[in-house]
């Protein structure tokens, strides 16, 4: 049984929002609201959910790229949220980020090799020679050619740029890599190349991924476990097979039923569950379950009390009164 690498407990991130006029009290948008999850070493946890559900914010908070309001983020044995100074620098080496947009996430004025090298310059004490060797190895590991080191980002294709982003993320030998929509901007053929690369690197370096994607086919392929978010909450959390073959939360069921598929058997048995309407105003959340106004099976209690995320067997967790 692999050990738990990342253990997030009660993580909350809120943003102050200005709304209306005058001297009214401050309002907060709880983008991530008291979420807890674990990721085992060498495994991939995916976060899915609709736009604005808080996926990116949760990931940024884990990496200390936005401040958390409360909660703990245990990595190995320390709380990431409490690290300061040299400790924090150590932690930053262990947690790296791969972004969605290979076009804007790389500095256009830097050559590929210095982009990959930058985290080493900032976060490590390695000698120049060591760094040069590491960069060369990384280029090879992600499938770029040595002569491409001196090129600028605009001289690469989208997929190659994403490879540079991956090499950069690997530079400090991190334990945890957060991939936020790493293939969404890429064409399907290039997407396959990058997904295969991510899995190969995971096997080779025993990497742990926190993976965000809106493509459920990709998620199904990449993940060991999946957390489904809705309006800042985790509503379901289960291993890959359980989540895809027996989703329990009505939102997850609707989500999976909406995915178009080429598999005829799947299409025949898939009954589309519509969830009309819009999610509630995140600044003015309703009482009770946040999904209640769109939920096809909601009952009176759903708009009264908020359901808690509870284990319904074999670690499959669901936050719904009716499960």
């Amino acid at each position: 049984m692999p050990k738990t690498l990342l253990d997030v407990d009660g993580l909350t991130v809120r943003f102050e929002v200005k709304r209306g006029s005058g001297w009214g009290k401050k309002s907060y948008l709880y983008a991530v609201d008291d979420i807890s999850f674990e990721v085992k070493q060498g495994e991939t946890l995916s976060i899915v959910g609709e736009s604005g559900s808080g996926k990116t914010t949760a990931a940024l908070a884990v990496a200390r790229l936005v401040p958390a309001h409360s909660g703990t983020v245990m990595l190995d044995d320390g709380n990431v949220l409490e690290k300061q100074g040299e400790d924090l620098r150590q932690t930053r080496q262990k947690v790296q980020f791969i972004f969605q947009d290979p076009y804007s996430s790389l500095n256009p004025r830097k050559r590929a090799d210095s982009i990959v090298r930058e985290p080493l310059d900032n976060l490590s004490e390695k000698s120049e020679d060591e760094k040069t060797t590491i960069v060369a190895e990384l280029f090879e590991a992600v499938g770029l050619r040595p002569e491409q080191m001196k090129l600028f980002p605009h001289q690469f294709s989208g997929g190659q740029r994403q490879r540079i982003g991956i090499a950069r993320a690997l530079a400090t030998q991190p334990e945890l890599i957060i991939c936020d929509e790493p293939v969404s901007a890429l064409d399907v053929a290039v997407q396959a190349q990058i997904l295969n690369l991510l899995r190969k690197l995971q096997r080779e370096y025993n990497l742990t991924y926190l993976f965000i994607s809106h493509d459920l086919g990709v998620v199904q392929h990449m993940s060991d476990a999946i957390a489904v978010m809705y309006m800042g909450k985790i509503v379901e959390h289960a291993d890959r097979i359980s989540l895809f073959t027996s989703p329990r939360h009505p939102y997850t069921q609707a989500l999976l039923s909406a995915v178009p598929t080429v598999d005829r058997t799947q299409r025949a048995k898939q009954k589309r569950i519509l969830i009309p309407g819009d999610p509630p105003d995140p600044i003015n959340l309703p009482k009770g379950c946040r999904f209640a106004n769109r939920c096809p099976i909601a009952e009176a209690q759903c708009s009264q009390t908020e359901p808690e995320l509870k284990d319904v067997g074999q670690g499959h967790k669901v936050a719904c009164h009716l499960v």
Partner: protein
Amino acid sequence: MAPLLEVENLRIELTTRDGIAPVIDDLSFTLNAGETLSFVGESGCGKSMTALALMGLLPDKIGRVASGKIIFNNEDLTQASDARLREIRGNDISMIFQEPMTSLNPVFTIGEQIAEVLRAHQGLSRAAAWAKAVELLDAVRIPNPKGRASDYPFQMSGGQRQRAMIAMALACEPKILIADEPTTALDVTVQAQIFDLLTDLRRQTSAAIILITHDMGAVAEMAERMIVMYAGRKAEFGPVDQIITHPRHPYTKGLISCVPHIVSDMTEERPDLIEVPGIVPSLKDFGQDRCLFASRCAYVTDKCQASRPSKKLFSNGQIADCWHAEDL
């Protein structure tokens, strides 16, 4: 019954810094009333350019129809005047774009914009046009359409804007609706609603739909026939079910198998995805007398490098432009 639209040997050329290139290179297809035809292929293969050609909206100055015909109702649109094309766009063929904000005007309310189309093309009075606009918003399932008609585009969510744009495209009761990646920016649950909407509308009005997409799953769900485009050329054409079950062009096969699909018989085993190496050639390399897919193809032989593949027609209606289509 004659098809609604017939495209014959269409060649569209773009003038760029690197010279003149055929962005659409000898494309022929037909579209029947009430059917959905899907265009798929990677970025840069000419899907949007095909749509723009049908709409008479090729990029100004640099794009032109070099040869071929677009026959709609016995009229060749490639010969039509700008005024006539505008008329057709208003009444017969309309388009939904990928990013609704580019085609909605931010300073007018949604209701005003739809009413304007109705007034221009159906000569309705102001009041009648507004009432019809509200009706259309209701038809695309915008909640509280009476109230929402007075919203500005920025006051709506992405999915609502896309639905408002569909309402606008439908205002003139088009015979052909071209949807260019209509759901790419939307959540799957919203996408499902939009697809349902398109399906209903097609059933009710027997309009034909041209659906441009990257997503093979969307094609399988929405379309009867499909065209796979590669580097400005038609790689494969035919009935969707047949093509997905047994693609006859290596590119189609690659597009289907490189994507991790949600399948009914999910297993613990997750083998690597089948890669299609390389990327789409750039526009300046279009138009050569060889198979443009050759550098990425697992079936390539000398013949493929030497001349452009001819059409291979199969008895089930599938057509693949590949020298080795029968070997697949």
